[in-house]
């Protein structure tokens, strides 16, 4: 059976009457979960994700003894979609978390050197957990925005007798860059942004690209069953550059708190 979403795209239209390069309504609520050191609720249309940051004490990795650690994890909880199942993260959730992890890490958003306490022995571990509340497509862009805003709102707990003391906080995380991730989808010969779930099912290939404020690309991942040509990639990067500025505006909320 041919998909209605696909038929529309071939006619240059979309199921919810958006333009190809138009995002759904975006809503960002920073500091959404009071128990987390930093958090954000982000919604792209009906796609909803909560990101929470928790700080813990960790042992630095052996190849970077003078740095704290960062880890982005994700759970595709069964409440968010009939296709998600309970249990440990599977392939899709793992890939999703690692795409967002690389966007944050490679942008050099967080100065991990400042999170080292005793080289080789102790440092701060920044844990970003992404909880999908409703999956209506384009999890990567939504989750990446949630992760960055959550990090921008995050506070450093105090350290008392080598233990974490959450009764008071010591200011924001050492944050400099604000990476934005934009995913461009190829359907036939068309390129579109922010697919909903019906559109996502007919996507041939998509490329997620994370960009820093200075315009440098810091992470990319091709997804989906199809391939891309060199010309496709050229087109996609131009779209990403144009659109990333628009998405970055939604991060302004965190800025006032972080610095």
């Amino acid at each position: 059976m041919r998909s209605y979403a696909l038929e529309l795209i071939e006619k240059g239209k979309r199921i919810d009457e958006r333009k190809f390069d138009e995002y759904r309504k975006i809503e960002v609520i920073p500091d959404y979960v009071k128990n987390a050191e930093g958090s954000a609720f982000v919604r792209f249309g009906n796609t909803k994700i909560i990101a929470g940051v928790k700080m813990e004490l960790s042992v630095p990795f052996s190849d970077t003894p003078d740095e704290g650690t960062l880890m982005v994890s994700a759970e595709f909880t069964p409440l968010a979609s009939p296709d998600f199942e309970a249990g440990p993260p599977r392939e899709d959730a793992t890939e999703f978390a690692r795409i967002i992890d690389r966007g944050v890490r490679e942008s050099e958003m967080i100065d991990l050197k400042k999170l080292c306490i005793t080289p080789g022995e102790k440092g701060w571990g920044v844990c970003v957990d992404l909880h999908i509340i409703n999956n209506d497509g384009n999890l990567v862009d939504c989750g990446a925005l949630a992760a960055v805003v959550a990090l921008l709102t995050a506070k450093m707990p105090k350290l008392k007798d080598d233990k974490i003391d959450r009764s008071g906080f010591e200011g924001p995380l050492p944050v400099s860059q604000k990476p934005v991730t934009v995913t461009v989808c190829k359907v036939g010969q068309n390129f579109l942004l922010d697919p909903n779930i019906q559109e996502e099912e007919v996507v041939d290939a998509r490329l997620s690209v994370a960009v820093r404020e200075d315009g440098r690309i810091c992470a990319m991942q091709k997804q989906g069953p199809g391939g891309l040509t060199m010309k496709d990639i050229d087109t996609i990067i131009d779209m990403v550059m144009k659109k990333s500025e628009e998405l970055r505006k939604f991060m302004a909320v965190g800025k006032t708190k972080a610095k």
Partner: protein
Amino acid sequence: MVMAKTDEKLIVKGKRKDGRKPEDLRPVKLELDVVKRADGSSQASFGNTVAVVAVYGPRKLYPRFLQESDTGILRCRYNMAPFSVDERKKPGPSRRSVEISKVTRLAFEPAVFLEDFPKVTIDVFVEIIAADGSTRVTGINAASVAMAAAGVPMRDLVSACSVGKVDGEYVVDLNGIEDNNSDADIAFAMMPNKDLITLLQMDGRLTKEELMKLLEMAGENCRKIYSMQREVIMKKYERVEAEDERGDVE
């Protein structure tokens, strides 16, 4: 092998630590039929990085509820031997290997005529025996010839390589130490005759111009690797033909 972060210069007077020029691949070895029980198998080495691949199938998929009535499925598993790295790697899947298994599968999906094999699976097992950078692309290069040797109908071979920016220079086929100290690195695979890119992962920091230049380089080197892959497959069938004429039975 020392692969950790270093402040040492990795390219001195246009030469890399292992003596290569920036645009050189490491010595490549491709060998077929290293796992006789498999339907197709191969071993690939790029310098010190070694991958063994076995392909089983196309074969009936069990349990039956996993079968797809209108298409076959492809399953890939990327795994590192515990002794393949500096510090022993705990056996079993990691977040990294789960992701690489998935992108390996996606690198091949556009190439395989899966729709011709309803209810069937093609299983590809990639084992990294020794890791010195660029393991996922070495695995893909080995898997490509192993699938061809198994007789899996494909639209094209898949050829892969890594490229990156090290000490400000564009380099091909990163080894471990370069990988850990690069400004940016890209894992890339394509179907060379179709000009279709099927794997693209990048991290680091690049402008668009730098990215496009690196992708060009990746494409050129995939074509070089493609001709090596083609050669090893052609040799196998010349051998089979000769054996047929003599009436040899293996």
